[in-house]
Each structure stands twice: as C-alpha cells, then as structure tokens.
C-alpha cells in the first residue's frame, strides 16, 4: 500500500515534470545547432514523443497485422489474398458490412446533429451546466452498464402480460405492441435500436467538443453582427456555424471511425445475432474465439483501408483552414 502511495506522489509531480522538462530540454539542444537549421529540426523534436508512442504501440502491431493477413493461422505459410477473398466471399461478412454502412451514416448524423443542437441550445439558457450534465451522463456509463440500461428499455414480455420494458410499456398505453425490438429484422430495425444506444451515449461527446469550440468564438464578432441588426438565427447561420465547421468535421470523422469500430454494444446486447453483426465484432471473434489470426488481420486491414477517403477529405480541409487563418 505505501509503495503505491509513493508511486502516486512521484507520478503526480513527476509525470508533468518530465514532459515539460523534455520540451524545455529540446530548446537547449536546438541551441547547439546553427540558427537557420533550427526550424527544420524543431518540429521533429516536438513530435518525437507522440511519434514514438504511435510507432511502438500502433504502427508496429499494424505492420504485423498486415503481414499476418497474407498468411495462414500459424503465421508460417504465405497464402496470398486468401483471407481477403474469404472475407468478401462470406455472406456473414457482407451482412456485417451492410450494417456498418448503416452505423456509419446514422450514428454520425444522429450524434453530430444532436450534439450540435444541444451545444447551441444550452448556450442560450441559464441552466447550461445542468443540461449539459444530463446529456453527458450516458458517456460516463460503461458499456456493460449501458447494456443493462437498455435491457430495461427494450425488454419484451409476451402479449397479455405486464410489460416491464420502458418502450413496450409506453406504447402499450396507446394499445400498441409489444414489439421485440432487438428481433425485428425488417428495415434493420434491430440494428437501428443498437445505433440508438450508441448515439445516446456519444451525443454528449459531440456536445462537449462542439460546445468548447462555440465558447472559443470571439464574442466581438457576434456583437458586431447584432449591432448591425442581425437576428439570432442570422448570427448563427452567418457567423457561428461557419466557424464551427472545422470542429464538426473533427467530430464527424471521429464518429465515422467509431461507427466502423462499433463493437461493444453489439457484443453485449445481441452478440451479432439476427443480422445485427458488425465487422469489428467479427474481427474480435476470429481473433480471440476462433484463433483465426489470418482472417482477423485481413478484417483489420480492410477497416484501415476503408477510412483512406475520409482522411484525404481531412487533408483538404486543413489546407483550407491554413489558408484563411
């Protein structure tokens, strides 16, 4: 116990100290160099810790994964694109891909839409902190707890018995239902029910980031417009929204990637049954349950390739940002 407390004390003081000390030390190192060489070297020193972390813990495993995706399970025999043709040839994988497209579109639209709405609305009321907390709480819920929470929401009991699930009890008041929410495959209703759970959790995430950006907008800009007689809506359309666009791109990109990697909720609530499976869940099963490292690696590489277009869009966006600032 005591050595843990000593560790804690050292960490609390030491970690920031080391990190700040590192940057301070780089400037000392740069002094050795001739002045004109410094701007070329400096960024690399500033980025070095981040790049080192990423190289060791993400890039190195991904390179191994990419190699493994071309090999058999034991990692000995080169099998070419077999693992990829297995993936694109299996009906389960294609059903998962289709679900991931739904996740990608609807989770992103829902989270960014509601996140923006809430961030803008709370900016205009006095109980801002309270309102934000209410929307934020689901994000603090662990995935296991979220599974239980929505179990109580979606619960189904046979017709004629007392409904204990919130949704079925609510529609029961109007004489409808009960509906087995997680079993209805028409129009992918069950997948949407899972997306709703995730959106409920992540709206707070979008709200916090968008709200932070909103608070960063220079109030003088808005004041000037108001002085010119613009209505609040015009101020939002003309000034606030355009300034929020970069942040909305960040949140959207993050949510698209979150949707591609969606896993826990599906795993906890339906186990991917009844056509609700997603590719990340498949990858997990192939890797940790079925011992199919080759196939699991191929899926991971597919995920990586899938986001390349989004990344190019981001490059374009950052060029724009630099042009105008």
């Amino acid at each position, binding site marked *: 116990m005591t050595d843990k407390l000593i*560790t*804690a004390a050292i*960490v609390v003081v030491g*970690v920031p100290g080391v*990190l700040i000390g590192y940057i*301070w030390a780089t*400037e000392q190192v740069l002094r050795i160099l001739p002045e004109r060489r410094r*701007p070329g070297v400096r*960024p690399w020193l500033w980025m070095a*810790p*981040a790049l080192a*972390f*990423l190289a060791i*813990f*993400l890039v190195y*495993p*991904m390179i191994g994964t990419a190699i493994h995706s071309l090999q058999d399970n034991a990692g000995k025999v080169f099998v070419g694109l077999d693992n990829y043709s297995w993936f694109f040839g299996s009906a389960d994988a294609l059903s998962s891909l289709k679900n991931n497209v739904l996740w990608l579109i609807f989770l992103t639209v829902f989270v960014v839409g509601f996140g923006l709405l*809430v961030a803008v*609305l*709370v900016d*205009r*009321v006095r109980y801002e902190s309270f309102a*934000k*907390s209410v*929307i934020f*709480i*689901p994000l*603090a819920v662990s995935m*296991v*707890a979220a599974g239980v*929470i929505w179990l*109580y929401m979606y619960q189904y009991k046979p017709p004629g018995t007392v*409904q*204990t699930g*919130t949704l079925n009890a609510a529609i029961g008041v109007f004489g409808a239902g009960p509906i087995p929410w997680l079993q209805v495959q028409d129009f992918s209703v069950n997948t949407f029910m899972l997306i709703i759970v995730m959106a409920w959790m992540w709206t707070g995430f979008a709200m*916090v980031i968008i709200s932070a*950006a909103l608070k*960063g*907008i220079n*109030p003088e800009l*808005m004041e000037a417009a108001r002085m010119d007689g613009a*209505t*609040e809506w015009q101020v*939002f359309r003309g000034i606030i929204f355009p300034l929020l666009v970069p*942040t909305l*791109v*960040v949140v959207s*990109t*993050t949510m698209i*990637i979150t949707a*591609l*990697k969606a896993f826990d909720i599906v795993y906890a609530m339906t186990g991917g049954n009844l056509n609700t499976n997603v590719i990340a869940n498949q990858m*997990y099963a192939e*890797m940790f349950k079925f011992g199919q490292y080759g196939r699991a690696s191929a899926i*991971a590489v597919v995920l990586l390739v899938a*986001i*390349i277009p989004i*990344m190019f869009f981001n490059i374009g966006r*950052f060029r724009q940002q630099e042009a105008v*600032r």
Partner: protein
Amino acid sequence: MTAGSAAIDQAGPKQGWFARNHIGIHTALIILMIIWAIPTLGLFINSFRPSTEAFGTGWWTAIFPPYQFTFDNYLHVLNQSNVGNAFLNSLFISIPATVIPIFVAAFAAYAFSWMEFPGRNILFVVVVGLLVVPLQATLIPVLGLFASWGIAGSFLAVWLAHTAYGLPFAVYLLRNFMGSLPREVFESAAIDGASPVTAFFRLALPMSVPAIAALAIFQFLFVWNDLLVSLIYLAVFNPDNLPMTVVIAGLISSTGQGLEFLGAAAFISMALPLIVFFGLQRYFVRGIVGGAVKG
C-alpha cells in the same frame, strides 16, 4: 467572460425564436433532457430494488407505494473483497494515462499547426488515420513487447498503452483547436522575441483550455471504463493492480448470476468521472481565448 455573455443577455426577446431564454429553446431542451435521462433513471431506480422486483415489474412502478427500496445491491458491490484496492488502482491507472497523452499530444499538435516542415499534412493524416486501428489487434504484439521489457503487470505498461491508444484522437482534436487560433497572436509573440516554448506555454496552451478540458474528460472516461487493456496487460503478472472494472465484471458469475448488482456498480463507478466532468465544467466558458489574447 462576463462582457460577452452580459451583452447577449441584453440582446433579449426582440431577436426572435432563436434568442436566449426564448420559450421554444426551453421546450426543446427540456424534452431532449427528459429523453436522455429516462434510460439512466430506470437503471438508477432499479438499482435500489430487490432483484425479483427489478426484473419482475417496470421501474416506474417503484415510484408509487408500497415502497420496497433497498441498499443491498450497493452493499454487495462495496463489500467485494478487493473493491477499495481496485478503486485506488483505477485512479493510479487513469490519472497518468490522462495527463501523459494530453502533454504529448499538445506538443505534437502545436508542431503540426504552427511549424512548417515537409510532409506535414501527410504525416498528420497518418497519425489521425491510426484512430481506426482496432485496439484488439494491438494487444498481442504489445503484450509481447511489455513481457520482453519486463514491465508486463506494472502500471507503467498500462499508462504507456493508454497514452498511445488515446493519442490519435488527442492530436486530432488539439491540432484542430490550436490551428484555428489567430495567426497574429503568434506572429506578434515571435516579434517580441518569444521562443516557441514560451509561445506554447504562454499562448497556445492557455488558449486551448476548453479543448484540453474536453480531451481530459474523454481520455479519463475511456481509461476509467476500460476493462480489456488492463486485463490483458496486468491480470497474469499482477492481479493486485487491476482496476474497478474487473471487480464489476466479476459481479456476474460464470453461470450468469448477479445481473442485479450491475446497476449499483455502474453508479458507484460513474461517480468519479462525473465529478471530473463537473470540476472541468468551469473551463467550458466563453472568453478564455479572448482573455489570453489580451493578456
């Protein structure tokens, strides 16, 4: 801070339906809050009910008499043999695993937004693209590294791993925020002879406080709620270092008993992240950026 919001207050009702404190805004917001709160409220109420009640009847029936509330579920969770130790471990894991990536990411984000070097955009996109790397795909190779370094089972291993896993998003968010700061601020600082280190600590960092606060919350939450990473890197060599999430997952027995304790466990484990959120709320206010510019 006050100058801006006071001015908006004065803008008043003549500004139409989108104005501050308009009735439409209140209605919309309150409806949203109710929708968002109901699922959690259901679990909260059920966490105080005996399991036969919680699974047998809807949570709303508990609002009406006869009342059958109990603290048993909470007591069961708090009486788990190692819950105190696990709570401390969660803190030991989460605090450094939040602080380290924020600093590391802030340095990189500053370089990406305010230093010129060849290949900057491509490198940045590669960093952000790493967001998509599935965590599960890294577990085995990274565990191999930790084992060969001799740090498997230690807090250090989990700090390093969580730092790396959190970095792509942290760099992305901070670079977006720092990149949008006005150019004049840094130019005038450079003219005044401030070094990049000074500009970073005196200007970029304070002006990015809202983004850093947001980042701190998320990173803290993700680490606090993580089960898999800790389990893989700690469980074999040093189970005494495992966090709360492992204790909570252990409430469900191998044959599936114990579902009724999850609600209580969820609220116990949520308490601290929410305190962090409330604590950081005060940094989400207008004017921090403006204030720093003037200062």
